[in-house]
């Protein structure tokens, strides 16, 4: 049976990607996905050989043919996104940054002067890495991160896992609590929360716990940079415990993480004997048992 683990943090920059990558050294027969399609970084440590590149359809945007527009303004009145502006010449044009692609203007235009263009800015990749296959993506700037790309990446990973008999999928999750996070949770079995010892880390942790408590999955927690603020770390421990989340370890603040990153290595490769790596190995053993 294929098990799926998603690593989440709520707040950005807690060390989620570094820790996901470090798990790569211990996970056997695993396949990875980078679900943080908005700011995908896992590939910087995994140094993938890209085997397949696919375009992924983004949203549609409206455009107005200036020669056909008669300047009646029906489209502007109907648009709820303030995406239609009158030009100096009295005709209309679309502000593509505001347009959400609902195509209402296209349907209402009496002159059929409006048409839609689908953006193909998003891409996703299947790659080979030293830790196993990686499915990752690059979202075009300004695209709607609706979770569809995350779902596509995860579906592809499952397909590979099924056909090549991988038994675990490890997903590097996106930050926040919105749509992409929800997409990275569908049908998973385990969650690893990476908490950071700071006031904002604590608050974002509360919000992510509230979101994931609706799912019936095994939840684990690891505290990063725990020595930055001992008081907050204690509060994190007690909130994890009161929510029945198993704590797998605490990692001190260490510049080694950044040094490893600069060399394009995981912490397990850069400092294999260090105390941090011991914590990560322990984390992996707890999660995989």
């Amino acid at each position, binding site marked *: 049976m294929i098990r799926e683990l998603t690593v989440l943090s709520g707040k950005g920059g807690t060390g989620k990607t570094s820790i996901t990558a470090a798990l790569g050294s211990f996970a056997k027969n695993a396949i990875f996905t980078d679900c943080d399609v908005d700011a995908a970084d896992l590939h910087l440590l995994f140094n993938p050989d890209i085997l397949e590149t696919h375009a992924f*359809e983004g949203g549609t945007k409206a455009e107005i043919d200036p020669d056909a527009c008669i300047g009646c303004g029906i489209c502007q009145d109907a648009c709820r996104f303030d995406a239609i502006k009158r030009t100096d010449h009295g005709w209309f044009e679309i502000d593509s940054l505001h347009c959400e692609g609902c195509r209402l203007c296209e349907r209402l235009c009496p002159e059929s002067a409006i048409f839609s263009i689908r953006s193909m800015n998003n891409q996703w990749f299947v790659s080979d890495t030293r830790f196993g296959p990686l499915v990752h993506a690059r979202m075009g700037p300004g695209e709607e991160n*609706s979770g*569809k790309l995350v779902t596509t990446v995860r579906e592809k990973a499952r397909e590979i896992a*099924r056909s090549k008999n991988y038994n675990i999928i490890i997903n590097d999750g996106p930050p926040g609590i919105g749509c992409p996070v929800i997409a990275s949770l569908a049908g998973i079995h385990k969650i690893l929360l990476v908490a950071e010892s700071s006031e904002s880390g604590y608050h974002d942790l509360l919000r992510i716990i509230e979101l994931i408590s609706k799912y019936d999955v095994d939840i684990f927690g690891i505290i990063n940079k725990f020595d930055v603020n001992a008081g907050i770390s204690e509060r994190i421990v007690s909130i994890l415990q009161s929510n029945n989340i198993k704590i797998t370890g605490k990692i001190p603040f260490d510049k080694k993480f950044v040094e490893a990153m600069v060399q394009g290595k995981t912490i397990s490769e850069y400092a294999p004997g260090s105390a941090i790596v011991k914590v990560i190995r322990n984390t992996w053993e707890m999660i995989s048992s």
Partner: protein
Amino acid sequence: MKTIITANGSDVNATLDPRFGRCEFFCILDEETGETEFIENKAKLQSSAAGTTAAETVIEQGVKKVISGDFGPKAKSLLDRFGIQMVILKDEGQIIANVINSITGK
């Protein structure tokens, strides 16, 4: 009684499609006569809510049973609401003809 089986192709030699909402074809089976008809799943390329649209098709076809590899939550609640039985097959690679044989008891 009519049953729908999600299929990867448009004949009985195709395999079971493990996805409900995004399957390639629906195989409509008449369990009494053993006759089959294949229709394309128009929801498969839909960017969102494919499961709901696929469930719509199933309900419109008036079937009482759907056989697939998985059902999403929205599809499930819709099918439940209209009293349609869902079956999840453990082995996903099965050939449709075999699935038909096992449920018709041949």
